[in-house]
Structures are given as C-alpha cells and as structure tokens.
C-alpha cells in the first residue's frame, strides 16, 4: 500500500493570493488579527527578502517594506483552495481525504506505480498554474507521506521509512508546549532519538500523551482515510474582500472557479453542458445568467470565454460584492463525425462567435429566423442555431413567387391620396410620388379573440419614379411597410 500527501506551500497565503487579482506579484503578509497587537504570521518571499519576518507587528513590517499588503486569513479563499486541492487529488484516485487545511491524502492502492511520477508532475504543474504550489510526499502510510511532503521538493517518495524518519526534527510531531519542553530537556531533538527509547519507558515519562507521541515519531499510522465523495453539484461561490466596480477582479476569480470546476468535472469523467453565473450586488440586487453550451466540455478556456464575453456587456447598478458559478454536468460527447452531415468543425468556437455577435448587437438580435405559428405579419422570432444543419426541405415546397420584401422597421407613416378608392399618390419620408400601378386590396385580420386583434388592408403599388412597395391601411392610418426588392 502507498499513500500520497499533497500539501500546499504556505497554504493560507497562497489561498488568499490566488483569488485577489492584484496580489500575486505584490509582497504580502498575513496578520494574526485585527487588533493593534496583531503580528505577522506568514509572508511571501518578496516580503521576507525586504526584511519582513514572522512576529513583527504591522507598523514594524511596513517599516521594512513600504509596498507590503497586509491581509487577514480568508476562510472563503481557503475553502476554495481546499476544494481545488481535493479536485486535483481525485485525478490521482477517487479515495482521497482532506486531512487538514491545505493537505490532502490519497490512497494509491491499485495505481500503476510506473505512471505515478508523470501524474504527480501533472498535478503539481496544474496546481502551480492555478496559484497553489504544492509538495507531494509518497510513503507506505498517510503519516509518513505527510512528513515526506514537508521535505519534498516538490516530490519525495519514501522507501526506507526508519532511515527517513531518524534525522527529522521533533517539531514535526507538533508536540504540546510542555512535551516540547520535556523533549528538549531530555535532549531528544530528532525522531530517531525518540524511538531509541523503548515505547513503555517513553510512555511512563510523558504520561497519557506518550504512546501517541512515540507512535508518531515511529511513523506508525494505520487509520483508514476519511474518504470524501466527489461532488454531485459543481459550484463555487465567494464574497469579495471589497465591492468591485471593474471587470478584471471578477474575471480573475471566475477563472479560478472555472479551473477548479473543470478539474472536478474531469475527475468524475463529466463535462459542463451549461453554466449559471450569479453576481451579488451592493444594493442587495442580483444579476443572474444561465448559459447553455453547444456541447459538453471540460475546456476551461471555452467556459471562461463564455463568461468573459457576457460580462463584457454587463453594466450593474451597484458594485459587485460576491459571485457564484455553477456548472451543470453531463456525459462528454463521444461521436464520430459524419462525412455527409455538415456539422461544425469547432462548435464552441462557433457559439463563441455568436456570443460575441450578441454582445455587439444585443442578445435578442442574433439567431436563426423562425416564423411563428400565426398569420400576423412580421411574426419572426430568432432561435439559437443548431450544431448540425438539417437536410434541405425546399424541394417539397411549391416555388416561391414575387420579389422578397425589404421591411421598414418601424413602417413609415404615409399620406395617401385616393381616387375612386384607389391609391394614386403616396407621400412618405422614404418614397413619394404618383402611383403608376397597383394591386389590391387584400384584407386580412387575425387574433380577433385576443386583445391584440389586428386587421389591415394591403396594397402592392408601383411608383411612377420606379419602385415596388407594400402599402398598408390600418385602423391607425396608412403605412408604407416595405419595398419589394
């Protein structure tokens, strides 16, 4: 049996930095609290290089590094980082537990050991790219794997447990303060030194905590993992540290969400077929948008661009205070392209173009025209294009007649001169002049049983100066509806 412990480096700090857009490149330090006596508990390498050290008060730290950003630990950011760590662990094995904050342990039973180095490298690189660098320790039990992770750079595999444990400092056991004092008084500075003392003698000297301390020093751990089941709902949410009015911080967080959710989906052999984005606003309002994808995907880039294209067009009444994202899972599409059915070469790219067109023209102004089931004129709705084009149905239809209409939307109000009830002169802002020839009238009506009942009288006219038009008499007056072109 072997286990892998995946431990995030400087976890509270890394969790915070990966979700704040302007923190990754800045020197940052974590404070122990908000009181005046709060001290620095952890600092980035750039802050440490500038002289910031654990135990300094905020003024002391700022005196060392003027650009220092001081932050408190963020439970929300740490939850999100833990979820990411777990999603990465599931890509190694479904038997994974969250051992502690920033630490996951994975049972590698049944894994092909020859492929493990490659998989560890993949997981490490993926997490590093998402702002969460990790160390991975591999050992016969979870405890030694955890010790190994502390010493890994970035992966350490332990074959000979006693020789690995012997030189390790006793601080690794995280003893209680009184035990630490006693260990120091006895000159026991390494785990090897502890285990040279017989277990019973050690227990007599250290009391009730003795056996457990000795077992930890010997690397004994036979506890079963508390396995976490992969989620059934793929969601991420966070309150922002401060209300945001610009797009960049939101996109930064959303990118992290998308990366984590795609990892979780992939671990469950699933893909996202839709997204739900919710933005909470400072005025207690909410902006919610659902996105349907043409095909299920785990491509984080595709999912992110869907959100980015939408958010580029959104203007909210108040700053954004929090956001959440949910991915709807589906089985990935497994199909072979059909030589004779023209589908899309890249459905996501096509729908991305449509989303961009919608961002330019308006989401209700782009699509495939579909005539509604009514005789009302100009009853056209726009539908989403399909991935595959159906076979032509034109051959079954009778041949079309006449010139197509080019509509004026809205129709132009017209002044019409009648002679013997026939239009003989038309004046509109678009076209005016004597009527040379005409056909009509055609009287049509519909929806008489509804409040929006309509009735009209249509004429097709040819002006003396040229041009064929549709002239309409409605209860509201004459309208020039369009030009036959």
């Amino acid at each position, binding site marked *: 049996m072997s286990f892998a412990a995946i431990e995030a480096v400087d976890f509270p700090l890394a969790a915070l930095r990966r979700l704040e857009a302007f923190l990754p490149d800045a020197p940052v330090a974590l404070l122990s609290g908000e009181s005046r006596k709060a001290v620095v508990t952890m600092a980035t390498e750039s802050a440490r290089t500038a002289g910031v050290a654990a135990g300094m008060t905020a003024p002391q730290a700022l005196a060392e590094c003027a650009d220092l950003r001081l932050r408190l630990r963020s439970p929300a950011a740490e939850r999100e980082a833990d979820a990411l760590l777990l999603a990465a662990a599931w890509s190694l094995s479904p038997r994974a537990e969250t051992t502690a904050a920033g630490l996951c342990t994975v049972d590698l039973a049944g894994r092909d050991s020859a492929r493990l180095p490659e998989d560890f490298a993949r997981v490490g690189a993926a997490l590093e790219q998402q702002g969460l660098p990790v160390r991975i320790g591999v050992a016969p039990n979870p405890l030694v794997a955890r010790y190994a992770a502390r010493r890994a750079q970035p992966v350490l595999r332990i074959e000979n447990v006693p020789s690995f444990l012997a030189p390790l400092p006793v601080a690794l056991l995280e003893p209680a303060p009184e035990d630490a004092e006693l260990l120091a008084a006895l000159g026991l500075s390494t785990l090897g030194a502890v285990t040279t003392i017989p277990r019973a003698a050690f227990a007599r000297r250290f009391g009730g905590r003795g056996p457990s301390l000795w077992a930890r020093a010997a690397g004994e751990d036979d506890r079963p993992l508390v396995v976490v089941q992969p989620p059934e709902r793929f969601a991420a949410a966070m309150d922002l540290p401060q209300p945001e009015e610009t797009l960049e911080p939101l996109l930064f967080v959303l990118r992290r969400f998308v990366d984590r959710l795609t990892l979780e989906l992939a671990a469950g052999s699933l893909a996202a077929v839709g997204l739900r984005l919710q933005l909470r606003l400072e005025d207690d309002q909410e902006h919610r948008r659902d996105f349907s994808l043409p095909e299920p995907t785990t491509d984080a880039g595709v999912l992110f661009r869907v959100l980015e294209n939408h958010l580029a067009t959104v203007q909210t009444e108040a700053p954004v205070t929090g956001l959440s994202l949910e991915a709807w899972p589906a089985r990935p599409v497994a199909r072979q392209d059909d030589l004779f059915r023209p589908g899309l070469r890249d459905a996501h790219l096509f729908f991305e173009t449509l989303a961009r067109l919608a961002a330019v023209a308006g989401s209700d102004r782009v699509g495939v025209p*579909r005539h509604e089931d009514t005789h009302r004129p100009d009853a056209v709705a726009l539908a989403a294009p399909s991935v595959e084009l159906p076979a032509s149905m034109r051959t079954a239809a009778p041949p079309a007649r006449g010139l197509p*209409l080019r509509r004026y939307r809205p129709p132009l109000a017209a002044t019409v001169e009648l002679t013997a009830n026939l239009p003989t002169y038309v004046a509109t802002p678009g076209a005016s002049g004597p009527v040379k020839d005409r056909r009509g009238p055609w009287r049509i009506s519909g929806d008489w049983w509804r409040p929006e009942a309509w009735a009209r009288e249509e004429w097709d006219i040819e002006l003396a100066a040229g041009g064929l038009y549709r002239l309409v008499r409605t209860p509201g007056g004459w309208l020039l509806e369009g030009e036959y072109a």
Partner: protein
Amino acid sequence: MPDRHEQLAALRRLLAERCPPTPRRPDAVVPTGIAAVDRLLQGGLRRGSITEIVVAARSGGGQLLLDALIEAADEARHRLLLIDATDAFDFEPAAGASDFLPQLVWVRCPTLDAVWRAADLGVRDAHFTVVVVDIRGVATRELRRTPPGVWYRLQRAAGESGVAAVVQSDVVTVPCAQARLLLNRSFTLDALAAERTELRQNLGIELQRQRLNQAEEVAG
C-alpha cells in the same frame, strides 16, 4: 519592334509556362444560384474576398439576390451570416415551405458601428461560408464617415478565413471590393406574380469590376 500589347502577351505566355497556375480549388468560389451572376463572376462569389453588389435601382433585385444566396446555402448545406444594418430582412415562408431558415444567422444591428464590429467578427469565423453585410438604406453621409480602414480590415480577415464576403449597398462604397456588380433595372408590378426562379434570370445586372489574382489572370 513589337508593340507593348504584344510584349505583355509574350510575357504572360512566358509566365504561364514557367509558373503554371495552381489549380483552382473546386470550392474557391461559392455559386450564387443565379446563372447570370455566376457567369459574370466566373463561377460565383470568390472565397477570401469582398464582392460588392450595388443596388442602384429601386426594386432592383438586391433582396432577390440575397434570397438566392440563402437558398444556395440551404442546398449546399453551408451557413450564411447576414449582418443587417437597417433591420430590413423579411421572412415570410410560402405555403408549404419550412418555417425557419437553419442555414441563416441573422444579426439585426442597432447601429452602424455594430455593423462594422459584427462584420469583423463574422468574417473571421470560417464556419460561415458567406457573410453578407447589407448596408442598403444607410444614409450616404453616414457611410462617408466610415474610415476606409474598415473595408481593408474586412478584406484581410476574409482572406485569412476564406469566407466569401458580400456587401450590398445603394452606392459604390467598398474601395477594395474584388468584384462589383451593379443592379440597375427596376422590376415592374408584374414581377410580384412571377416565379422567383424566373425573376432571377431577368435581373438587370452589370459587372463593374473584377480583379483576379495573379494565378487566375495567368490562367485566363
């Protein structure tokens, strides 16, 4: 001494011998479905370039040509993007005909700026075989304010994606159009009763410009 025309012809023959033209890809043109237009354009709309259709006459058949392009897209099962500057496209299916046009993506642009941006996006996506930018009805003074760079950018994008771009306008507008057709004859009222296939053959159409690329000129 041979005159310039003979020298030019000799040079062309020499070039044709030394540099045989690349055989034209069978899909290098997109047929419009109107025989007269395809004849004038030597097969149809050139992929990767802009064809401008200037509808100079009232009821000159611009919409009829667009209808033919949509029908051709349906038959060839490719996609057509219509960028409609004045929201003028009308869809009234005849009795028995399909009540939707799956091959057509219609963009109803609210502003002229949206037209240029939508055209730029559409022409870059090779999922569309034909992109029609319909700017008929846009005031000439507004079009004059359009920087010429818009058209060159569109041409360049079409060249890269291989999309056949079509611009329908009331007056000559596109300086870099590879081909320009002029529809200069109005239909009369009798046209409203005739079959569309017959009307397509009676378009008053004139080829104003046809720029072939070097390989095509040599082949010609």
